[in-house]
């Protein structure tokens, strides 16, 4: 009897169970790769600059995502609190994406520009010095540790392998010039990674410390760009709804 063969052979049972439960997942996930509207067509979304990229890596290292989501859902209350709902396009260069669903603290998807750099530095070092009610941990070492940027080009190369358009060739560079202009194209060029990281840190000085580049520098650079790439005033309200 067939039934009995399956039930008495645990290897076969496991294999067949896996086949059955993966069908649901495959039906939901696979079409997203070939349905064109999955990622909205929108201007402005670009890969992170080398400094922002290291900031994102620190964000992941410190586990900020355990308390903070980066995904504003299309509900009225979220719109009123955080701003425009997140687009798939906005996290197209995030590997891994930081959507999350745990909100011990507020969503950070539209954080860029909301607070000053000085506030971020103060808040990350000692949250309760500015928000007495806060339960967020202190991250004092961000200001103590110098940023290790020796491997930033490797990190960009790795991301390039999974489709992030950092340029490694003249052709890629020219494509970035066309898409984002020469200034950004320089920052997205792997060969110039360290130089552009140093230049951005020097001109913006996110950590407020002259002459030093700390981990805080990178993290605040990343936080200040979150959700600022798309200019929503360019689009009708209905435009993004057409993609769903």
């Amino acid at each position: 009897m067939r039934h009995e063969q399956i039930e008495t052979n645990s290897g076969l049972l496991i294999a067949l169970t896996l086949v059955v439960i993966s069908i649901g997942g495959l039906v939901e996930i696979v079409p997203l790769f070939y349905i064109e509207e999955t990622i909205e067509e929108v201007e402005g979304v670009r890969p992170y600059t080398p400094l922002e990229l290291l900031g994102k890596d620190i964000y992941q290292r410190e586990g900020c995502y355990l308390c903070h989501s980066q995904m504003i859902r299309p509900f009225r209350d979220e719109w009123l609190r955080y701003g425009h709902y997140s687009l798939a396009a906005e996290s197209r260069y995030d590997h891994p994406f930081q959507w999350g669903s745990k909100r011990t603290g507020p969503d950070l998807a539209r954080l860029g520009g909301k607070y000053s750099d000085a506030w971020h530095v103060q808040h990350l070092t000692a949250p309760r010095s500015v928000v007495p009610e806060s339960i967020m941990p202190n991250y004092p070492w961000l200001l103590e540790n110098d940023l290790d940027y020796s491997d930033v080009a490797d990190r960009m190369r790795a991301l390039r392998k999974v489709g992030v358009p950092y340029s490694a060739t003249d052709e890629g560079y020219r494509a970035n010039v066309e898409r984002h202009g020469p200034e950004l194209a320089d920052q997205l060029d792997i060969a110039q990674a360290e130089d552009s990281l140093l230049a951005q840190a020097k001109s913006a000085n996110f950590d407020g410390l002259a002459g030093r580049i700390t981990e805080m520098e990178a993290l605040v650079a990343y936080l200040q760009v979150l959700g600022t790439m798309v200019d929503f005033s360019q689009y009708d309200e209905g435009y993004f709804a057409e993609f769903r």
Partner: protein
Amino acid sequence: MSDQNKVKPTAPAVQTTGHAWDGDLQEYNNPLPRWWLWSFYGTVVFAVLYWFMFPAWPVGDGWTRGVTTASVIEQGQTVDRPWNTRYQLIAEMQTGDAALRQRAYAEQISSASFQEILDNPEMMAFARSVGRGLFGDNCAACHGSGGQGVVGLFPNLADDAWLWGGTPERIHETLIQGRNGYMPAFGGVLNPSQLTDVSEYVLSLSGLTQPGEAVEPGREIFQGPIGGCYTCHTPEGTGLQSLGSANLTDAIWTLVDLPAEASTEAKRDALSAFIAKGVQGNRVMPGWSDRLSPTDLKLLAVYTHQLGGGQ
């Protein structure tokens, strides 16, 4: 003996699956309870209906959109669009109950002058409840949930000392364009004893020390070309709202935490240390016109005004 393991011969004839393990271990094959079975069929029917009503199946490079619609207003026309969460959100923001009620108030607010709003209890009640939420989401991180601020970092909005002005109009302007106070660092201009002198004089401006002989050297620095403090803080020391230069004659301190220092000497040292550093670019009040709507900004100006110290 393990009698329990055996199917009792007297038990009513229950079907078993027919399998036996370990020789005599068998499995009943009881029918499912009827309510359970019908609930299950119900979910199957629900799923099929759902496929027709809502976006569901991938087909080619698109998907079935379903027959449910959301009514949205596009260029003044009400049109039906295939339902999805984004169209539903648009419909809710345009014609939802809460949105309509809120809009009625918002329109009233946006066409009223600040004085009219302050005089109208109903509009004030609205400004207070919406303002509280807006303030909590956007301002409390710096100014504190009650607007009390943090000495040295973010000014108190609940007291009646204002750097840039406490009328609703001035607060509104602060919110729209942001503010960034600037005071030069005097550490390289004045030597330590001059810093002490000018601090001594500043203490006397608000009555923390007695004016007299002792403050004369400091007065010269403050009022003369060496310090030039008077150009920003005025000769009286009351400050200029156009520059956001603090009033030095009141008992309210926004940057130097004088009340925390016990002795006059400690207060003077804290002042010297501050005057040596000044304020350069890092005390930023962001501008909000890109993030918040004009009505929200107006509501917040009124809300901030009524926190305690509005002028």
